[in-house]
């Protein structure tokens, strides 16, 4: 909750703004809510972020000779991107027509752009992982590792554009900060995997990445919510609110535990790493559910649009 109600000691939710007066058609939503299943698409957002940021860390580990860290992150990236592709295709109404995604390249469609990013990234992540695990073709493996590492941030950040480029109030209104929230969340997830799966001696970059990811995500989320106003409300209510509160606790807790103590204690690294991963997943599911909730309530569509019209009218005198 915002700080302006800090003096209150009650645990009940304090309204940030007075209940908005608005009219609607029998309280029915203006928008058709997303048809996407949470497990598929929020899962896709999480796994895509995990894969993308893991590839970046893996490339760094590869170059700096941290072979154990590189191997676990490359393997994680391949598993995550395969899982995310499965979720994406599974959610299509006509999965057998998945390849229709690649019949055009449409810059106006983030899903088209994303499909092409995945089509470039996926094979490189796959080659990076397989060459690392088998030891075959090390030079090809190095090229693929660096290639996947350079594309990784695009994989992690484009999904923010994917959700923001809709009429869903909570997703669209956060479009400036959402990519930073997703980037931070992705860094946290990859760092969590690195801390969890790698010996302490090689995991120093993952520990620093956990702190970086958490700081980026929390800062961006705070900015996003303060800019959004009314449409930030669904992030604090219901299922989404619970997930977002869990995400904050897990992300901060995981980063502090794993990032600060994970260098001394393997237990701290494992617990902190798991918390960072779980925190990233909670963030994605929380944002997903908040968006759906904002589409289901006409308030979040009508009130901000009315305010916009009133502002435009006032500006015109």
């Amino acid at each position, binding site marked *: 909750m915002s700080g302006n109600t800090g003096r209150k000691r009650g645990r009940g939710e304090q309204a940030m703004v007075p209940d908005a007066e608005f009219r*609607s058609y029998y309280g029915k939503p203006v928008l058709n809510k*997303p048809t996407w299943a949470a497990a598929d698409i929020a899962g896709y957002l999480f796994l895509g972020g995990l894969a993308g940021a893991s590839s970046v860390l893996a490339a760094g580990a590869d170059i700096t000779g941290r072979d154990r860290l590189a191997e676990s992150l490359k393997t994680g990236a391949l598993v995550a991107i395969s899982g995310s592709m499965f979720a994406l295709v599974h959610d299509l109404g006509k999965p057998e027509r998945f390849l229709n995604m690649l019949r055009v390249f449409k810059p106006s469609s983030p899903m088209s752009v994303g*499909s092409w990013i995945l089509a470039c990234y996926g094979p490189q992540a796959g080659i990076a992982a397989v060459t690392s695990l088998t030891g075959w073709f090390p030079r090809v493996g190095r090229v693929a590792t660096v290639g996947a590492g350079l594309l990784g941030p695009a994989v992690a950040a484009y999904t923010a554009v994917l959700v923001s480029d809709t009429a869903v109030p909570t997703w669209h209104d956060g479009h400036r900060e959402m*990519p930073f929230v997703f980037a931070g969340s992705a860094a946290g997830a990859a760092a969590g995997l690195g801390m969890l799966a790698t010996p302490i001696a090689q995991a120093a*970059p993952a520990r620093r990445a956990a702190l*970086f990811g958490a700081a*980026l995500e929390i800062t961006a989320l705070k900015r996003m919510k303060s800019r959004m106003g009314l449409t930030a409300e669904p992030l604090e209510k219901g299922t989404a609110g619970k997930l977002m509160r869990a995400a904050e606790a897990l992300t901060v807790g995981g980063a502090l535990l794993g990032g600060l103590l994970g260098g001394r204690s393997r237990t701290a690294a494992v617990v902190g790493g798991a918390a960072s991963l779980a925190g990233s997943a909670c963030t994605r599911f929380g944002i997903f559910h908040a968006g759906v909730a904002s589409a289901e309530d006409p308030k979040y569509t009508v009130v901000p649009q009315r305010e916009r019209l009133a502002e435009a009218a006032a500006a015109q005198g």
Partner: protein
Amino acid sequence: MDLLGESGYEDAGPRYGFFTDTSVCIGCKACEVACKEWNAVPEDGLDFTGMSYDNTGGLSADTWRHVAFIEQRKPLAAPETTAVDLGIPSFTKPGEEQDGQQGEFRWLMSSDVCKHCTHAACLDVCPTGALFRTEFGTVVVQEDICNGCGYCVPACPYGVIDQREDDGRVWKCTLCYDRLGDGMEPACAKACPTESIQFGELSELRERADRRVAELHDAGVGDARLYGRDPDDGVGGDGAFFLLLDEPEVYGLPPDPVVTTRDLPSMWRHAGAAALTLLAGLAATFVRRSR
């Protein structure tokens, strides 16, 4: 702007659309039925909503025309002349009308449909090219290309297009693309008994709508307003626009819709900055600190 030229049509004809004048809608739902029949749209539930005579609810994959019913305690208009008693029900007992006036009661009825936006978010975000702009300036889904990704559903600022559950693909009004090709008007407009739904060249419909709203204002219907007529609004104007008698949200329409892709360049810029931040931040974790 030249919508059809920008869409790649050379020597394109005029843009066609609907003008739905809700002031003469009688709520008969002939449009809903005609649309279902002509387009072979499947049955989507015989529900009793209990909220009004509207048991359809709203536009969906299997409802391409939807008649909204709104009951209000408000006179229809305040005409100068003596009102003729049309037998519209009132809240007072018969013979007890105050000052000879009818009870303060009106029904608003409006047949909603896909807006066929100038800047159509559904078309913009479709990753397969299944949604396209026709030579008539309308927006149509090619059902053999749609892969059911569902991206257009949350992109639409009006809540029009939706996914059919058993089939996975998305469906919406085509403005009877097949009939237009044969020089016929869409089924709903053909079936409308009061000419509430008017089909024609968009430029001509806009002029007709301007005259109609002026006429209603002169007749004392101050509430009359056009919705989706303005080519400078957030979606560049609607190909299917309306004359309403109350605020749009009362009919379930967004008061100030904006095509989401208007902000897409800004979104990509922010995503690019975030991707670089991620790359730089993670690269920095490998910078060796001297101990």
